[in-house]
């Protein structure tokens, strides 16, 4: 938590969006849009490592959301805030943002309070998209916290006919979206996670609450949308997944 706080506090120094939005509740300030991209700042587990001094949850930040929200703005009618936000699971304001994005969740650790908060958030109607974790070891690390959130709800493959794959784009042809390293290595998978999985956790009424994008890196595809070397079709597909998840979250 200390690291999260330090990271959030350091955010405004680089002039990027998101971290400067920590608001004083006494101030009346207009919300910048109906939808604001919120990145979940979680605690890291003991096996996680920082890269260039950044926490795992900061991966791809801020370019990923910077590019993605412009895509949302261009391709949909969603009134989108230009800048994103960063919130921790225990932040009270989390309830004002019914859509969350968490990256590198193979490194996350949720204590009991955070798990309970996330469970409450999701059951009230919030939506969580997790992304960029690979291989069986990271899956286990992800599930060790996710099972605290929902000990009794199964993680299932999202059926091909689920509205999440059709709400705005028909995503019948789904391929693994690789990280930037694919440009150099030519390999689309990481850490043994060869097969991509689009999984989810549903509520009692059959509504998707958590979209689990395993063995793929949608965030990297958003982040590198302006890289000439990154395949355009991967970026386009990543946008489509993100937009479908968002529209699904706003309609179901």
């Amino acid at each position: 938590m200390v690291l999260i706080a330090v990271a959030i506090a350091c955010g405004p120094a680089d002039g990027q969006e998101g971290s400067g939005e920590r608001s004083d509740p006494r101030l009346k300030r207009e919300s910048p849009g109906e939808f604001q991209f919120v990145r979940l700042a979680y605690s890291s587990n003991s096996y996680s490592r920082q890269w260039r001094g950044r926490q795992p949850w900061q991966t791809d930040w801020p370019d990923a959301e910077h590019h993605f929200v412009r895509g949302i703005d261009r391709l949909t009618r969603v009134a989108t805030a230009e800048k994103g936000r960063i919130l921790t699971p225990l932040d009270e304001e989390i309830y004002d943002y019914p859509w969350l994005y968490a990256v590198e969740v193979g490194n996350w650790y949720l204590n009991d309070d955070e798990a309970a908060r996330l469970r409450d958030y999701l059951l009230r109607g919030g939506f969580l998209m997790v992304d960029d974790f690979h291989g069986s070891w990271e899956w286990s690390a992800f599930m060790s916290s996710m099972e605290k959130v929902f000990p009794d709800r199964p993680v299932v493959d999202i059926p091909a006919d689920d509205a999440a794959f059709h709400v705005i784009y028909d995503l019948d042809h789904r391929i693994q979206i690789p990280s930037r390293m694919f440009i150099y290595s030519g390999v689309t998978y990481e850490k043994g996670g060869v097969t991509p999985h689009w999984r989810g956790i549903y509520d009692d009424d059959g509504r998707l609450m958590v979209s689990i994008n395993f063995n793929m890196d949608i965030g990297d595809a958003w982040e590198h949308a302006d890289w000439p070397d990154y395949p355009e079709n991967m970026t386009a597909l990543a946008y489509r997944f993100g937009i479908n998840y968002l529209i699904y979250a706003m309609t179901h």
Partner: protein
Amino acid sequence: MFEALFKYTPADYARSELVYTGDWPAWLIVGLALGAFFLVGLFLFQRRRSASWVQLLSVGLLQLSMLATLIWVLLQPTLTTERLREGENAIALVVDNSASMSYGVEESRFATALRNLATVTDADGAPRFSVRHYELGPSVRAVPSFTESLPDGDGTDLYGGLLSVLEEARFSPLAAIVLASDGADTRGRLDAGQVAEIANFGVPIHAIGVGRDTIPEDLELQEVTVPDKALPGSTVSARVAIRHDAPLETRIKVYDGEDLLQIVPVALVAESGVTTAWVEVELSDAGPHQLRFSLDAIDGETELRNNSRSTLVNVASERYRILYFEGEPRWEYKFMRRAVADDEDLVIATLLRVSPNKFYRQGIDNPEELEGGFPTTADELFRYDALIIGSVEAASLTPAQQQLIRDFVSERGGSLLMIAGPNGLGNGGWGQSALADVLPVLLPPTTTDSFHRLKVPARLTPQGQASQVLRFAADNTANRDAWLELPEVADYQVLGNVKPAAITLLNADTQDGLLPLMVLQPYGRGHAYVLATGGTWRWQMSMPLEDLKHEIFWRQLLRAMVASAPETVSLAAAGGQEGGSIALRAEFRDDAFAPMDDIGVRLVASHESGEALTIAMLPDTAEAGVFAGELLPPGSGTWYFEAVAERNGEPVAVARTSLLHESGAAEHFKIRRDTGTLERLAAATGGRYFEPGTLDGVHDLLRYSSSGITETEYRPIWNAPAVFLLLLFLKAGEWLLRRRWSTI
């Protein structure tokens, strides 16, 4: 005294004209007057030196007055009066023999009435008229004489009864009607038109009011008003009016059949009057519900029949359809749908514009529904019971579609809800659209950005506090507290002025003060709502999962919207609560809600016992597609009505309803004397109102009635003692003055 001096009563003078019956020629009278004037003048002239002018003038005036009085006596002044010819006229004695006349403390109202009516005809000095006797209840009947039987009429129809008596007397001389009644009319109080119609016969009606205006030891459940239609699982508000004549406390109990649903304590604060209370009743199952509302008896209360009323509520089992047209994906859309997802009676079909060129549909019945976008025909739109328009620009719909929405509200009777949004309400140009008249507010122009993503609390207005739509708790204080504890809504939109006929249910407590947040107005056959926020979803996200206020708000709002939308066919039955006849009204419209004016309607009324009657239904000349009929039910119980519309002998539509009828119950309500009605009736017809035992003068009133066969009565007044006393006074005065002055 007056009569001793002037021979007759003041009333005699009041109703008489003064004529002169002396047959002296006019020249003689004029000559006498001139002669008198000359003699007085000569008398004064001769004494002009011995007396002052004041003395001369005083004596002269006295002499002239005396001579003028003598000439007036010679003219033989006489009173002429039209009076009824005895033996050739009739009076009608009408006694109210309805069941309410059995009330009374020491003697019954009926006995009081008979005793007072007897003095009209039987007492000394009573004029000799033929007397007709009538008993008046739900109808009137002539009887040879009154008998002291138990009054048991199961209703009172003053208007119909008096008209019958008057119609019967149209061709015979009826001098007056003397009515003894408590004035309680189970057909409703006489209105001004009915009184005028009775007065047009020109027959005075003298009313004797029996009974008490106030009965402190009695409570009366005067009225229970509930919606005749409700949705399963919904809570209906019943308005209960209690008549009382003392400050008291009681309880209202509500039963559904034999099941006790609710007990509500009520404080009756006023000394005397009607106290209104609201009772919320939850009706879970579909089908007819016979609700009985009952008041606890108070100390000393003996008449308990008027403490209870029953009414029938039909809980519809059909599913209502709502069309929600939204211009952008937003959280309100999601959470509203979720709030009513479990409501089996509501279906929300949505048309959501997700991208500039793509619509997303949810809740549709079939792939063809809304396939072409927003409906363009009445058939397509009018199949919905309610319409929600969100953050959509008015320009996204054609003028014809806007007009269609207007017709949806005014003609079809649907409910429209417009929700705030960056592209909605004023921002969307709806204030300049064909819907501007429909909306309950004057929207600001598009040049002003009226939508603000600022969190604000929603505050109940007094009207909102009373609204069932905004009720989270039956208790008013608890409900107000619940609203105060609600999280802020996520945004609000500034509306213009609220229209005069509109009701503001919620305000937004903004930095600029209170602004209307939820406004409602009726428009044509339907209703238009404006909700100036798209941020009630915060109630769901910011409150514990177990808290259902967000769900309750949307369910109650949407249910209220669809419940008020009429069907294409409807059948209403009214009037059964208090006995009397049941008025039936059937309305038939086609799928586009155009009146069906080329049909005939056949109605069958079936009693719960199996008895069936066919009722004639006649078209309403004022309203196309509407047919009316009346049933005078022969007994109590539930009646089931089925109206079949037929075209060329083939049935084209059917409407059904049912009603609980309680014969005779009305007489045990309205048991207080309605003095006002009796006084109005007497005053309008030229009669007089009497309290029992104070019928002095009634004989004269009857004798000199303006109605019937009359004769002219001449009564000289020249020989009244007052005239001779006047002459004596004038002559004595002159004598005393002249004696005192000794100069004249």
